[in-house]
């Protein structure tokens, strides 16, 4: 079932139609034991605990889920997946929520969504990621001149070591183009 959620993007209200069914399928057998919460290294920074989030998923609380930063803080350590007594793919369920946020470009998750999208754009260009190019794309997408400053000390250190280059890589152009196209085509059919 698709549920419409409203969010603000540059002062106008936009609607996204979100289908939680695939995520609900993943956590259907959740018994609310809280092992996931107890195992999560980032739980201290989340607004809802992972256990609470799964209940919200099953209760169709779509608008609240996509106000929350819980799934965006998952660092894919797989402790919950390993320990879940019901054997549920919880890390994959967190990823599925991240994918929904990316698909609809939800502004609440702008930083992480733009980070991942810039990374993948650079990979699509060259086949391998180019750190300088991808970070430049990321900063451009965020449109906030203060953010690059946060990364400058590390960036300079890495450049001095010759670990990141100022120049884009010279490689066969777009070796992954046909794969990217075919994936998009198959996903359209879903």
């Amino acid at each position, binding site marked *: 079932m698709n549920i419409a959620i409203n969010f603000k993007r540059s002062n106008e209200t936009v609607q996204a139609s979100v289908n939680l069914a695939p995520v609900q399928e993943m956590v259907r057998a959740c018994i609310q034991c809280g092992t996931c919460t107890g195992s999560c290294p980032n739980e201290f*920074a989340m607004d809802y605990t992972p256990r609470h989030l799964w209940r919200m998923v099953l209760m169709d609380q779509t608008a609240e889920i996509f106000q929350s930063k819980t799934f965006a803080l998952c*660092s894919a350590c797989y402790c919950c997946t390993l320990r879940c007594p019901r054997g549920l793919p919880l890390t994959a369920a967190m990823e599925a929520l991240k994918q929904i946020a990316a698909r609809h470009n939800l502004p609440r998750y702008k930083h992480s969504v733009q980070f991942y*999208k810039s990374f993948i754009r650079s990979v699509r260009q060259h086949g391998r990621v180019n750190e300088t190019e991808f970070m430049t794309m990321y900063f451009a997408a965020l449109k906030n001149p203060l953010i690059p400053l946060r990364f400058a000390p590390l960036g300079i*250190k890495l450049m001095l070591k010759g*670990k990141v280059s100022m120049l884009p890589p010279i490689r066969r152009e777009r070796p992954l183009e046909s794969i990217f196209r075919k994936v998009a085509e198959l996903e359209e059919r879903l």
Partner: protein
Amino acid sequence: MKYHYYPGCSLEGTALEYNLSTRALMASVGVELLEIEDWTCCGASAADSISDLLSLALPARNIAIAEKTDEVRDILVPCSACYLNLKKVEAKIRSEPAILKKLNSILNEDQLQISGRLHVRHLLDVIVNDVGPETIRNNLKRALTGFRIAPYYGCQCLRPYVVFDDPEDPRSMEPLIETAGAEVHPWNMGGKCCGASNMNTEMAVGLELVAAILQGAKGADAIVTVCPMCQMNLEAYQHKISCMQNEDLRMTVLYLPQLIGLALGLSEKDLRFDLNLSITDSFREKLAAKL
């Protein structure tokens, strides 16, 4: 011993010393590495935050290229994030035949085919189980006596696929460290997440996790890692975290093949110690006394 070798993007850039020290160590114990021809990015932790299918198709392409070469059975992967992405494809095509069909319809665009006959192996697995402590003992040139080493495993070489170590209480590096002549730093942070994937977007959260690991390592001479994400995360923010916590948390962080390489007589130059971001003066002095 011969392996397909998938270095991955980090090992060409930020983790160049991991790549070069892995190659130097493997050459010194007679392991041959066949770099996968024209390999491409595995999707890192970005693809699976955008699309499930893409996160399988990207690593599958590299496995399919490796499959074109007969006689080699394993793909050796030093980066834990790449390892997990490739491993996921290996596991999924075994458990879900529909995925295999879908991946082949994608790879067909590039005249590639995947069957899933290859085994994806993490570098640590290969060093522990194929090379083995015995080979290290037989080739030992410089026992690292007096060094106390904290083994750090991170997450994705241990979980969710339980292959070569206990994912709750990893110990596989200990015999290697001891065979190299060093002492194992007793701690329970080896398999705890360092929060690398939050460091760019939610830095404060990532810093908390790194701080706990650096505090746990106090008393050790170095932490050793087996993942470029963990390595960078543990070495790059030490100054910031020391200021935040108001204690000196500077710590040498080495890649495992750099440490084992030292014991096998490889030089700091061969192992590219010049590229590490945090080797403390006291570690350098202690090492110089050994040379």
